C-alpha cells in the first residue's frame, strides 16, 4: 500500500516535470514572436517584406496571432499524448 502511494507520487512528479518543460518551451516561442519579432527586433526584421508587409510589422499585426493559435493546439496534442503515456486520461468514446 505504502509503496503504491510512493510510486504514484513519483509518477506525478515525472508528469509535472514533463509538463513544465513543454510549457516552458511553448512560452519561449510565445515571447519570441510577440515581444521579440513584433516589438524588440521589429526594425531589424522590417528590412525584409512579404508582399506589402514589412516583416516586423507583419509579426506585430498578423504573424504573432497565427503563432499563438498554433501554440495552443500543439500544447493540446502534446498534453493529450503525455496524459495517455502516464495513464491519466480516462478512455473516451467520443473521440
Amino acid at each position, binding site marked *: 500500500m505504502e509503496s503504491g502511494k510512493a510510486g504514484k507520487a513519483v509518477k506525478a512528479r515525472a508528469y509535472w516535470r514533463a509538463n513544465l518543460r513543454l510549457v516552458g518551451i511553448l512560452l519561449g516561442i510565445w515571447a519570441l514572436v510577440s515581444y521579440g519579432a513584433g516589438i*524588440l527586433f521589429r526594425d531589424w526584421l522590417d528590412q525584409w517584406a512579404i508582399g506589402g508587409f514589412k516583416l516586423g510589422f507583419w509579426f506585430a499585426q498578423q504573424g504573432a*496571432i497565427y503563432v499563438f493559435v498554433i501554440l*495552443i493546439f500543439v500544447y493540446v496534442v502534446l498534453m493529450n499524448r503525455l496524459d495517455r503515456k502516464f495513464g491519466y486520461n480516462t478512455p473516451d468514446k467520443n473521440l
Partner: protein
Amino acid sequence: MSVQVWTYILVIASFILYIGIAIWSRAASTKDFYVAGGGVSPLANGLATAADWMSAASFISMAGIIAFAGYDGSVYLMGWTGGYVLLALLLAPYLRKFGKFTVPDFIGERYYSSTARIVAVLCALLVSFTYVAGQMRGVGVVFSRFLEVDVNTGVVIGMVIVLFYAVLGGMKGITYTQVAQYCVLIFAFMVPAIFISIQMTGNPVPQLGMGDTLADGSGTYLLDKLDGLSTELGFTAYTDGSKSRIDILAITLALMVGTAGLPHVIVRFFTVKRVRDARKSAGLALLFIAILYTAAPAVAVFAKTNMIETVRNQPYADMPAWFTKWEQTGLLTFTDRNGDGLVQYVQDPARNELVVDNDIMVLANPEIANLPAWVIALVAAGGLAAALSTAAGLLLVISSSISHDLIKNVFNPQLSEKRELWYARGAATLAVVVAGYFGINPPGFVAAVVALAFGLAAASFFPAILLGIFYKRMNSKGAVAGMITGISLMLFYMLKFKFGLFDGGKEAVPGLASQWWFGISPEGFGSVAMLVNFAVALVVNRFTPPPPERIQELVEDIRIPDAAPPPSGH
C-alpha cells in the same frame, strides 16, 4: 429596402433568436446557473468564450483605434490574443481540475482564508462593473445611430433583453445565446471586410488584401500608399508608430496578463466536462477570436485609406451623406478654420479641420465604401451581439460573486440551493439595473477605466492564481499581501496619471506624462504592478509559515488531470 428597414429586421430577428434560446436552456440548479451544469462541449465553449471576450470595444472600437494608431495599435492585437496562450497553458486546465464555480472560490480555498476570498470578490466586482458599464453604453450608441431611438431608450431595451436571458438562464442560457451571438458578430464583421477588400485590392481575404497591391492597376502596395498619405499629411508613417518601445512592451504585457486574469473569461473554463476539454476549448476560443483580430488591422488600413481619400482637400459641400449623418451624432466634427470651403485633415492641430472619433471607423466603413443596405444593417446587429454577449458574461460574474462567494460562502454557509439560486437571480437583476444606470449616466471616466480594467486584473488575480498552482509552498499571507499591494499600486497610478487626482484634476494629466515611472503609461502600468505583486507575495511568503498539509495535497491534486475513475454508466 432602406437601411433602416433592414436594420429593424435583422436586429429584431436576432433578439427573437436569443430569447428563444434562453427559454429553451433555462437553469434548474445552482450548478446550471454558475457553470451551465458543467457539461458544455469544447466547441460550444470555444464559441461562447469568443463571444464573451469580444466586446463592443473589439467589434466597434478596435479597428478604429488601430486606424489612427497604426503600428502602435499592435499592442491591442497581440495583447488581447496572447493572453489566451497564458490562459490555456498556465491556468485553465488546473482551474477546471479544481472544479468549483468561481475565481474567488479558488482563491478562497487555495489560500484557506475568508480574507483572501473577500479580497478576490472585491477585485472581481471592481473589474466587472467598470467593464459592463461600457458595454451598456455601446448598446445605446448602436441603437441611437441605426434605429434612431434615443440613446437612453436603447440602453433600457438592452437591459431588458440581457435581464431576460441572464436571469432566467444563468450560465447555461448565456452560453448558448453566446454561441448564436458569435455567429452573428463574426458574420457581421467579415462580410463588409471581404467586400471592401475586394473593392480595394481585388483580394477576397482581408488578412491578405491588407498586404496586397491596389486594384487600380498601379502596382503600388496598399500599405505603402497609406504610409505615403500619412507622411504627406504630417503624421508618422502608418507602419511606424510613435509610442516608446518600453511603453509598447509594458502595455502588451499588461493586456496579455490582464486577459488571462479576467474573471468572466476564466469562469468559462469551469463549464466543460474534463481537463482536456478545457485545453481544447481555449485553443478553439483563440481560433475564433483570431478570425476577427487578424481582420481588424486590415479593416483599419482599408478604412483609413478610404477616409483620407474621401475627405482630403475636397469641398465640404460635396461630402457624401454618411459625413453629414455622423456630424449630427457629434462623433465627427468639421470646422473650416481657413474658410476655403475645403476639408483639411492634417497632423498639425492648428490647421486640422476634421476630428473623427475612433468608433466611427467600423460603423461607417460600409457606408464609406458604398456597400449594400443589408450589409450596413448587419453591422448594427453585430455590434449589439458583441455588446450583449459580453455584458451577460460580466453580469454573471457579478451575480455569482454576490450570491455564491459572499452570501453563501462567507455569511451563510447553511443556505439551501434553492434560496441561493434566488439570490443569484436577484443579484443579476440588481447588477443589470446598476449597469444600466451607468450606461445612461456614464461617468466621464468609463472609457478610460475599461482599458484599465486589464491593469487591475493583471495586478490582482494573475499572480495569486499562478502561484497558487505552480508554487506549492505559497501561503495565504503572501498571496493576500501581494493582491492588496498590486491592486492598490495600480489604483494609485491610475488616479495620479489618468485622472490627475493629486495634481489638480483632469487638466493636469497631459503634463504629467513626462513624470511617468520608467516612461510607462497608466495603460501599461499593470505589468509593473503585477511584478510588484509577485515580489511582495514571495517575500512575505518567505517569512511566514507554509500552508497546511491538506492545501499542499490540493495543489498536487489539481496538477494531475482526470485521476479519478471514469464516471459510472460506462
